[in-house]
């Protein structure tokens, strides 16, 4: 029972991380990226390669993944959004869809189409040694996932609230024309925000990859979509909303597996989203005015 809750929270914190990245991007650019799940996958595969061929050092992998997905995000923003700033949003959406298809297939070429795993001998210490708290067993890896996720969320919050760049991002999110008039380099803020959002996705990929130790080219697709639903449930542009919704979905999912079968698990988040879209399109924490904002 309690372990189920821990499992749910671990899973939920990953959703929260992914949703957070997605929300940061939407909140600032007012556009959706469909390649978020694939950035997640890239993060996971980089982790796989580092652990298998280089060194099983978690923090080293973390730093590399952060860097790599930051760059990937920046490149994606420039290709999909900066070049198409004046185009209808639909075009940017299609480009991100195209990029996601490309990333999946390139990963397939590099790492093969099948399922891969880090050799158990390497990951053993991390994955299977448990710590006991009053009769509740938690693995190191679960702690690492929870710890990193929470640390990143806090870092994100502090970054947004306390730094100058964070202020520029918030200003751009509110009104990018006004921000531009105030001397904010809006283009740079967009690229930077996108890169930060992608970074969150990449780290989530690393965490999930190691946690389940299953890697396959389409691993990010479903999770990316779940993160979408989490951020819709949270209100699409609300950072706390994304975190709360991600955690709720994670916990509900892990209990749904107990009550029904594993197939139901993946549907929870989408049903959540559909209910929220019908009943309260602004989401749990969203602002009303965004709903009718023409997004096309």
């Amino acid at each position, binding site marked *: 029972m309690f372990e189920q809750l821990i499992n749910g929270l671990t899973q939920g914190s990953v959703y929260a991380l992914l949703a957070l990245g997605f929300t940061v991007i939407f909140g600032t650019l007012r*556009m959706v990226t469909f390649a978020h799940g694939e950035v997640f996958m890239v993060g996971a595969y980089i982790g796989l390669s580092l652990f298998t061929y280089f060194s099983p050092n978690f923090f080293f992998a973390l730093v590399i993944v952060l860097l790599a997905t930051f760059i990937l995000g920046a490149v994606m923003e420039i290709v999909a959004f900066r070049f*198409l700033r004046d185009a209808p949003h639909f075009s940017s959406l299609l*480009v991100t*869809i195209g990029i996601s298809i490309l990333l999946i297939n390139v990963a397939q070429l590099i790492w093969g189409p099948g399922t891969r795993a880090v050799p158990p001998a390497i990951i053993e210490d991390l994955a299977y040694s448990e710590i006991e708290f009053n009769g509740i067993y938690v693995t190191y890896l679960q702690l690492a996932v929870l710890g990193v996720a929470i640390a990143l969320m806090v870092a994100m919050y502090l970054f947004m609230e306390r730094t100058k760049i964070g202020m520029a991002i918030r200003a751009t999110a509110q009104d990018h024309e006004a921000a531009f008039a105030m001397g904010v380099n809006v283009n740079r803020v967009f690229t930077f925000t996108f890169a930060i959002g992608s970074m969150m996705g990449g780290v989530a990929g690393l965490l999930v990859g190691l946690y389940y130790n299953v890697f396959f080219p389409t691993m990010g697709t479903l999770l990316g979509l779940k993160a979408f*639903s989490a951020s819709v449930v949270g209100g699409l542009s609300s950072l706390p909303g994304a975190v709360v919704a991600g955690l709720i979905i994670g916990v509900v999912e892990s209990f749904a597996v107990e009550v029904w079968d594993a197939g139901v698990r993946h549907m929870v988040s989408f049903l959540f*989203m559909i209910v929220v*879209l019908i009943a309260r*399109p602004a989401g749990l924490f969203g602002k009303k005015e965004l709903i009718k904002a023409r997004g096309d």
Partner: protein
Amino acid sequence: MTGPLREAIANSPYWALLAVLVIAPALIENQYILQVMIFVGIYIMLTLSLNLLNGYVGLIALGHAGFYGIGAYASAKFSLELGFPFLLSLLGSGVVAGVFGYLLGRPTLRLSGIYLALATLGFNVVLWLLLLNWMSFTNGPLGIMSIPPPNIFGYEIETRSDYFYLILTLVVLTLFSMNRLVNSRFGRALVAIREDELAAEAIGVDTTRYKVQAFVLSAFYAGLAGSFYAHFVKYVSPDSFTHMESFIMLAMLALGGSGNLFGPVVGATILIVIPEVFRGLLEYRMIIYGSVLVVMMLVRREGLLGGRDYSLRLRFLDDPEPEYTVGDKFLPDGDVGDGAEASSNPQGVEGRS
């Protein structure tokens, strides 16, 4: 005005094209080529139906394979379990897909584009998960096998060329009905919504209603395509209807161009034929689709044939366009004549534009 003969001659390029396609199976002995042509037909139908939403209404629908799948499964169920004849299951599966279109469109079309994009994609994924996990109804990942071949009033469709004629009929019917549709009041309302939703609403277009109707219609056509697919392949499984399939349709639309009836046909044809012609590329099919999406959006956003209407009709045979008087911009010639208009513009008749 226009005699039926003149009309027929003006449309002769279409008739010629149709004639070529009708004779084609007799000349093509290679069954494989026919098979590819049949798939081209299926995807033309799908891309055309997606075009109704993405091209004409300007909605962002990303879950079209969902309706395709619903049509396929519905048709399989109708034929296998209820023993419906083919035409009835064809229509029935279109209707079932349309109903799902209504159920999905009704609550989500009030929202802005991005929500719709997410909701339709979510719908596609939920449907896929449902097909995969609802063992008792859909037989899960194993899919439904041995779907009977179509039987139309006692005529059993068996050979590839039979199937080719069937899909040709369906595609022609789709093109014909869509042509009527998009040139009607309905189609103009859709374009008005695409161009400026607020303005459309201001001049009295019930935007939500038209959007929902377009959504239902589009789902209906996709359902028909799904039904044909089920009876052609005789086997349906969830993996044929993932959101990647939806993305393939988007790529076809992006390549061909949307907002007219030629773009989708061209896009679907090219993207099905190219991987087949260059057999070595079959493995990289998805890479082609992905690159097409990225490159087309960056280089030629409106697609190969986008942005305006195309026609093979021999225009020089048509009567010249009716000219309107300056004062009566919105009235065709025939309607001019009430005194109020004439008096408000005394030079109306002379001042032709």
